[in-house]
Structure formats: C-alpha cells, structure tokens
C-alpha cells in the first residue's frame, strides 16, 4: 500500500540502497587487481554507467517510436527525459573512462578505447538533439522532430561502434583493450550489483525528473487558462 502511494520515494530509496551496497562492495569486498591496482576499480563504475547510458538512449528511442506510431502524446516528454539522462550518464562515462585512461596509461584521452570514442560520437549526436529541441517552438512539430532524431540515434549506436572498430585498422594499429579483468565470482557479483545500482539510479532520476516536468507543464497550462 505504502509502496504504491509513494512509488517515487520508494524507487529513490531503493536506488540509494543499491548504490551504497555497490560502493561498499567495490571499496571493501572485491579484490584489488594485481597489475593495475586501485585504479582498476573504476571499471566497476565505468562500464555499468556506460551500459545504463545505452539503456537510457534505447528507452528514449522506444518512447519516440511510441510517440510517432501510436500518437502517444505523453511519450514525447518521456523520450526527452530518457535522453537527457542518457547524456548525463554518457558524460559520466567519458569522465570515468578518462580517469581510468589516466590511471592505466597515463593519458587523459585515449583514442584506443573504443568505448570512449563511441561515447564521444554519441555525446555530439545527443547534444545536437538538445540544440534541435531548443530551436523549435514547443508543440507537435518539435515532438515529432525530436522523436525522429532519437530513433536515428539508436541506429547510429551500433553503426558507430562498427565504424570505430573498422577505423582501428588504419588509425591505430595497436589496440589497448579496455576490457575488464576476467571476471571471477566475487568480481562478477560486484559488477552485477553495481550495474543494478546504476540502472536503479537512472530509473529513480527518470521518474523524479518526469514528475517534475509534468507538474511544470500542468502549471503552465493552468496559468494560460487563467489569463
């Protein structure tokens, strides 16, 4: 009963708990890597955050599709919030990836890291999404253009990944794989908890931001009706 009435608080609480658990596990439970030392633990943040970003973009594209196909009015805002979160998590991916690169290879940027390069391209693409949205008056046209662009984005993800892989053959003959360690029991468990925590955090933020934006929209409509 309480759960249904306070869904928002429940998801925030759940996310907070998972996040705390994940941080505790990463800090104390999982063994430190023999070669890379403490810095390798960033992997347990970096990859789940990246996967969560993909999930956000995918969810945004799904909502965009619903908006176009089923004329679902509410889906436009949902798509926007999902992509907004995707960009935030994407930026975090780049930051954590950069920190990891610095710790592992001594450089702040590494073109060799496929993940980093892919996120850079996607970051550019989705930033353009916001520029597009700000450049059109709010209304059905803006919703449609945003939805189509969001769908383009999700097609771009695998294509870009393929392109980056292909480009390696003539850009950098040497490839450092930013793969994590061979994941044995405790490592895998920690990774999964961290991934669940990131997804839960994204979910909670999604619901909070969506609720906030819906209230904004309703207030604005009320204001217009009164004038």
């Amino acid at each position: 009963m309480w759960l249904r009435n306070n869904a928002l608080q429940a998801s925030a609480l759940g996310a907070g708990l998972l996040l705390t658990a994940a941080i505790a596990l990463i800090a104390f439970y999982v063994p430190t890597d023999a070669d890379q030392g403490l810095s390798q633990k960033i992997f347990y943040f970096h990859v789940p955050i990246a996967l969560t970003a993909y999930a956000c973009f995918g969810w945004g594209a799904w909502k965009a599709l619903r908006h176009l196909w089923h004329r679902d009015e509410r889906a436009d805002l949902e798509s926007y919030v999902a992509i907004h979160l995707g960009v935030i998590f994407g930026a975090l991916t780049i930051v954590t990836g950069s920190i990891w690169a610095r710790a592992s290879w001594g450089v702040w940027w590494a073109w060799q890291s496929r993940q980093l390069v892919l996120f850079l391209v996607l970051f550019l693409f989705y930033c353009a999404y916001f520029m597009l949205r700000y450049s059109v008056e709010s209304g059905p046209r803006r919703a449609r253009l945003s939805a189509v662009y969001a769908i383009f984005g999700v097609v771009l993800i695998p294509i870009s990944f393929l392109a980056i892989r292909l480009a390696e053959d003539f850009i950098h003959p040497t490839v450092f794989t930013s793969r994590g360690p061979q994941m044995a029991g405790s490592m895998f468990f920690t990774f999964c908890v961290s991934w669940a925590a990131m997804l839960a955090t994204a979910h909670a933020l999604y619901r909070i931001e969506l609720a906030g934006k819906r209230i904004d929209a309703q207030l604005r409509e009320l204001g217009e009706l009164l004038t």
Partner: protein
Amino acid sequence: MILARGLSKRFGAKRVLEGLDFDLERGGFLLVTGPNGSGKTTLLRLVAGLLVPTAGELRVDAERAGLGFLAHEPLVYRELTALENLQFFSRLYHVPESGERIGMLLERFGLWDVRNERAGSFSRGMLQRLALCRTFLHQPSLLLLDEPYNALDAEGTSLLERELAAHAGTYVVATHDPERLTPLATQRLAFA
C-alpha cells in the same frame, strides 16, 4: 463534407482558435470573416491538414488529390516560368491532358502571353493569378482560399469571380472584405 466540434488550436501559449463548431455540407460555400490575426488562416490550414488541432474534432471528407489550397503566399517557384510551374504541379497531381488544361487556365486568368516568363518577374497581382491557376489546376472538389482577392486588380477580380461561378465545388474562403463574396455564401463564420 467538413465537420468541426470543439475545434481548438494553440501555438505554445497563444490561443488562436477555441471551441469552434460548424458543419459544411458538400457544395456549400463557407465565408470566414474577421480582421487580420483572428485565426482565419489557421482554420484553413487545419482543414487542409497542414496543422493538427490541439483539441476537439475536425473531419474533412476530401483526399489531398481533391483539395485546392490558395495560401497567403503564391506558392510557386520564382525561377521557373508560369508554364513550367503549372507543368510541374500538373505532374504532381496527375492531371489528365495537362497541356490543354494548363493552356485553358492560363488563358482564363489572362496569363497566356506571359506563360514563358519567369514567375519571379511577375507583379504581385500576376503571381496571385498564377497561384489561382495552380489552385484550380486539378479540378479540386474542396477549395480553400485565403484572401483570394489579395493584390488582384479590377481585371483579375472579375476573372476570379467568373472562375468561382464556373467551378462547382465546396468552398471555404477567408477574407477581411466580405462584401463581394456574400452573395455566394451559404454559411458564414465571423472571427473576432
């Protein structure tokens, strides 16, 4: 042919149409009057399908092939000649025996002599006549005319009136100068 119930259109915060109701039967002539900015153009664009309503219902019983739309702009390509413009649109609308139809329209609107001149060299009145040719080209059954007398001189006006009398169909005409069209109107909508 057209049914509107509670039709509303908003652009962001600006409310242009609110709770509009009307019925227009086939063959009717709806005259929409009102000052500039009162929403006449918005109504025509909604009926044409260029805009979707914010609220309410709008049913238009016409396909795009049977729709003739005269906008504020002439909607012709300035770099092409009058003839080329009409040839292009006749291809797009799959007009049968287009050569004859184009020739006939150009003559009816007094543009035959300038048919091979670039539309960009036309005066505003001649552009309006060309736009009218484009509108009537495919013999539409539903005609939406936004300020059809715009920029027309005396000759152009009489040519238009002759065409309106000759061409049977359902009309929705927006104008801020309703006197001329009142005799043709079967219905009126006045916007404030």
